[in-house]
């Protein structure tokens, strides 16, 4: 008898550019687990995948359908829908592995006392929170500024749409930036959709910012990068987890060159780490030729799914696979790396009070050295026209005052 598991995907909505590879990674992983490990405890996982088009209301009505199917867990996606569902999953005790890394979701017991932050005991995600990723980038930026030996205080600016997702780390980032000695400039807003952002770039140039955080998803970030290139803006862009990847590099071309951004996995596609073989095996599920290049989000999808898989395995040992037991499965390990994925998936730590799974943030730099309009990502990466260069890894302290922020 198969185990029903929900999977909310965005393959068609506003975040589908990054949602598609992530969802593919998740789906492939479960298919691979079903095929090679005969599911979990001998039972196949029945993944009920649903493309909700990044529309929170639709996710809620789908949730209702799933609760009829008695799903034991859900692989989720966006910020708005995760926040909409978080109450329901807490009420119904359904563990939820989200694609939204909003720090507000990490206060598992609801003890931080921050306004608007509730207990989210059943919500998990794989990776550093948006706020922590930005904090790491700011620390790097402070060092970078020092290393470059330029005079005066560096100027920092937050850029992004006025939406939950880009805004989620805004306050945290600006606070830390001020703490680190940055001059914090008024935020610059640009829509979540691609468009002409020359005006914003001219403002950016005029402000004289040195470090700019791009809070949106790839599509609109690309527009900004291109416009700023044309306008001749000299600024170090800091991308976010969902704001930069191989596809975005291809679309932005040379404009993406030099952007620093966090990568949640210990390696990117094709690097030789022990876990990569498994990832390649998983990739073959949907690409039998084995030639496809998989962007960072695909790998993150694998790692997220593997957390759920292993938590379910733990739950299945000596009992029913129930939501509550799966949740406890997330707490069962320290420095948790799914078996066989060493070097690929970064270690996570969850406790009943603190769902900040990762505080180590690996930063990469995008390198683009030629015309990217011809040929696919696979060829461009192989040819070295596009490269992902590791910059550094920053480990943040587990500060209690940062919980839920």
């Amino acid at each position, binding site marked *: 008898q198969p185990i029903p598991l929900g999977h909310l995907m965005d393959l068609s909505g506003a975040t589908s550019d990054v949602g598609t590879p992530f969802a593919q990674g998740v789906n492939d992983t479960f298919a691979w687990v079903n095929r090679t490990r005969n599911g979990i405890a001998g039972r196949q996982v029945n993944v009920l995948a649903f493309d909700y088009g990044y529309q929170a209301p639709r996710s809620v009505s789908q949730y*209702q359908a799933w609760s009829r199917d008695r799903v034991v867990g859900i692989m989720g996606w966006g910020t708005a829908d995760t926040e909409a569902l978080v109450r329901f999953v807490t009420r119904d005790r359904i563990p939820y592995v989200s694609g939204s890394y909003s720090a507000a979701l990490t206060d598992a017991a609801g003890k931080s006392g921050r306004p*608007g932050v509730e207990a989210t005991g059943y919500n998990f995600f794989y990776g550093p929170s948006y706020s922590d990723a930005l904090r790491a980038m700011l620390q790097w930026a402070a060092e970078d500024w020092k290393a470059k030996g330029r005079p005066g205080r560096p100027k920092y600016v937050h850029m992004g749409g006025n939406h939950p997702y880009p805004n*989620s780390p805004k306050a945290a980032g600006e606070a830390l930036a001020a703490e680190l000695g940055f001059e914090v400039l008024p935020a610059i807003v640009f829509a979540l959709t691609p468009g002409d952002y020359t005006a914003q770039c001219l403002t950016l140039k005029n402000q004289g910012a040195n470090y700019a955080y791009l809070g949106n998803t790839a599509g609109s970030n690309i527009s900004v990068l291109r416009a700023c290139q044309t306008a001749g803006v000299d600024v170090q862009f800091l991308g976010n987890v969902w704001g930069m990847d191989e596809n975005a590099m291809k679309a932005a071309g040379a404009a993406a060159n030099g952007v620093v951004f966090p990568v949640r996995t210990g390696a990117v596609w094709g690097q030789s780490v022990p876990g990569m073989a498994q990832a390649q095996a998983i990739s073959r599920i949907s690409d039998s030729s084995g030639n496809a290049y998989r962007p960072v989000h695909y790998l993150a999808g694998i790692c997220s799914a593997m957390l759920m898989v292993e938590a379910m395995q733990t739950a299945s040992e000596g009992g029913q696979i129930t939501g509550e037991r799966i949740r406890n499965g997330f707490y069962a390990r320290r420095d948790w790396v799914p078996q066989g994925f060493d070097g690929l998936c970064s270690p996570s730590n969850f406790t009943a009070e603190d769902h900040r799974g990762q505080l180590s943030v690996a930063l990469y730099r995008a390198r683009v050295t030629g015309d990217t309009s011809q040929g696919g990502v696979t060829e461009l990466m192989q040819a070295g026209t596009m490269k992902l260069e590791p910059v550094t890894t920053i480990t943040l302290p587990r500060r209690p005052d940062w919980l839920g922020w």
Partner: protein
Amino acid sequence: MATLAPAGDFRTSYRADMTIFPTRGSRLALWLGLALVAASPLVFGRYELGLLINIGIMGIAALGLNILVGFTGQISIGHAAFFGFGAFASAYAHDTWHIPVVLCIPLAGIATALVGLVFGAPAARLKGLYLAIATLAAQFILEDFFARAQWFTGGVAGRITEPFALFGWVADREESFLYVVLAWVILMFLGAANLLRTRDGRALVAVRDHYLSAEMMGINLAYYRTLSFGIASFYAGIAGALYAHYLLFVSVEAFNILFSIQFLGMVIIGGLGSVMGSLMGAAFMVLLPEVVQAGADALAGSAIDHALKLGASISFLREMAVGAAIILFLIFEPDGLAHRWRLIKAYWKLYPFSH
């Protein structure tokens, strides 16, 4: 046709001639329908009940829009923003002043009506599409306001809302919330039907059909143009409030232009100027994606699935189907579902002498 009255149906008083449900059959159907909905939690699961609730909520909002578009002839492309305002207002009223949710819902309706009046004031001077696009502006301005007004909406992160409760009875599940929605649907639909057969309802239609001669009949154009905005917003506000206490979470993202357009779709598909049509249109728009999804599920694994790679592209197909359904609908049923329904009824009434 509207002029056809069924044979054997004689009215003996003006009162009888002026009822909303003119025939015994229609009254019977009404009671039966209500009874079925009321009994549905016995048969339906939460998912289906959720759909019913959604239909009810959307139906109320669509009815409001229909009063504006269908009766007064003023197109609005900002209905979702008013809907959203109602949702936030109710949540805000409950959280800030600790007013019970039961009262928050009508309060949100009134607050939204007031906002509607503010935006409706230019409506008194604007005609046709100029007005339509002013409402588009309202949509974007309100959306921006929602995103900015942290104190009111919880900002971009959204706001968590409390479930409906009455004397200790908490309607936090579909099985119970259905009745809350049902009660409001009955109230709002009766209200609209009554409005339309009395002075101000006729005035609204008169303004649409020929505003110059309406004015000559003593109708204050500015008042009625604004009023219809107020009423439409009131309906949107009530629906929004219900939505907020159903989802238990409201965020600005939901109330976007696409949602506004969907409302417009409900009204047109249901039938412009038809009270019951609004409900049918809402049902159509809510169920259409589900039907497409079900169709795809049924096809899953078949040859067609492999040929078209349905699995991966189901969402695009679903959207395309929604678009195509709207177009086909307009082509083959331009007068809306309500019209088709009337024809079916007429067929039964005239049966077996229909042709």
